[in-house]
């Protein structure tokens, strides 16, 4: 955005002008508050805090805007007691202006963390897809199915932030192959999986928060399923369910490929 009076100013010059404007406005508002500490004057502190965020002022710049007029006011105070009162009153104003800056900073930090987690989860999904699409998988024996399942539950648990992940498949007449990944410690899922790994049925399904996705062959027949139990933070969402379904599909394709190759040998 370009302001009429600042047209052609270099970015650093413009920033200095903005900071100077901010300091002048902050000093005037603080002075008004010190003369009569009312709600309206305090609202002005809130507005200045918001403006500091918009103009991307640092905490140090905001502190400087506060300290300079406060020192002027304290020097003009008739005695030490009045100066102390001024400092107490001014700190209310400062805290109000600081609150919104701190809130904005926390929100930005959370957004950054969230963006980092999303990037990391996307990388985990991409890598899982690469592993499962590797041509070497088609040359493996059925032992690889267990590794596929283990890899899939470990990645799924991490990507979706669950306490426990389990996957089971039944290939022909063979015994079911099951893999699980669990967080450390005693958690809600402990009773569900502690004795033996088994395909979940209505009687063995966990209480509380869990999601499931089928592992299905290309011709539609049921190979098994994947379950995630207890979201670490919050509850599972529809998006979590969709991601789990996607992971289960990747696992289905890899397992079926390994199985087809094994049968043709």
């Amino acid at each position: 955005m370009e302001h009429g009076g600042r047209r052609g100013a270099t970015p650093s010059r413009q920033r200095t002008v903005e900071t100077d404007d901010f300091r002048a406005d902050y000093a005037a508002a603080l002075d008004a508050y010190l003369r009569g500490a009312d709600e309206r004057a305090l609202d002005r502190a809130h507005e200045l805090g918001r403006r500091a965020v918009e103009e991307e002022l640092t905490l140090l710049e905001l502190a400087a805007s506060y300290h300079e007029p406060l020192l002027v006011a304290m020097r003009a105070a008739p005695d030490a007691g009045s100066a102390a009162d001024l400092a107490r009153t001014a700190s209310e104003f400062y805290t109000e202006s600081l609150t919104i800056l701190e809130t904005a900073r926390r929100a930005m930090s959370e957004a950054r963390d969230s963006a980092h987690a999303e990037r990391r989860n996307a990388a985990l999904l991409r890598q899982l897809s690469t592993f499962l699409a590797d041509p070497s998988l088609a040359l493996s024996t059925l032992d690889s199915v267990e590794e596929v399942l283990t890899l899939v539950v470990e990645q799924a648990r991490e990507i979706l932030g669950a306490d426990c992940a389990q996957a089971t498949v039944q290939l022909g007449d063979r015994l079911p192959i099951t893999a699980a990944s669990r967080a450390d410690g005693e958690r809600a899922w402990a009773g569900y999986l502690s004795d033996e790994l088994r395909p979940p049925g209505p009687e063995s399904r966990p209480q509380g928060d869990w999601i499931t996705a089928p592992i299905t062959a290309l011709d539609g027949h049921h190979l098994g399923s994947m379950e995630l139990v207890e979201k670490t933070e919050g509850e599972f969402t529809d998006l979590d369910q969709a991601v789990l379904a996607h992971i289960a599909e990747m696992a289905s394709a890899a397992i079926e490929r390994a199985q087809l190759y094994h049968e043709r040998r």
Partner: protein
Amino acid sequence: MTSASQTNRSPLQRRVATAIVEAAAEVFAARADGGSLHEVAELAGVGRATLYRYFANREALLAELADVAAAKVADRLGSARLDGVAVEEGLRRAVAAFVDVGAYFVVLAREGVRSSPERLEATIKKPLRGLFERGERTGSIRSDIPAALLSELLVAQVVVALSARPELGREDAVATVTSMFLEGARAGGASNDTSPRPPARE
């Protein structure tokens, strides 16, 4: 490049282990203070549980990384045929081989001293020492510095060049290390050198 522990793994397990070891080489080489296993898992694109299932601890991961690195170095040095060329060309080829191995070489040189000095000796130092000893005999390498120390110095220079930021390109890294090293190691180099020198101390 298959290490001993890789031979017992299925193709999928080899694929996963390789991704983890590659990431470990990058992370450990980039950070002189080590770098965490969480960073390795993140760069490899695997869950932490997966990393710990493959490598129970940092030492296990470093041991396999050193295996792979040593195999890569041995393979490159073998192709370089150091014995069949003049010493200076051999030195350039050795440096090029180390630079090509990249992050693996940095970790092997840095960590190998602590975790597997024998392997470091066999894969890197011995061939280099042989090259320098030949150079001393033929008069192309100064003989007042022991060949073992020259080997150590060359390895250190390659590590520095590979760790430089901004990164040096392959050719720049090879040329920089080779020329810097030869200027100091060449026999009679000091007396023939007419470049300006700092004033001698009183």
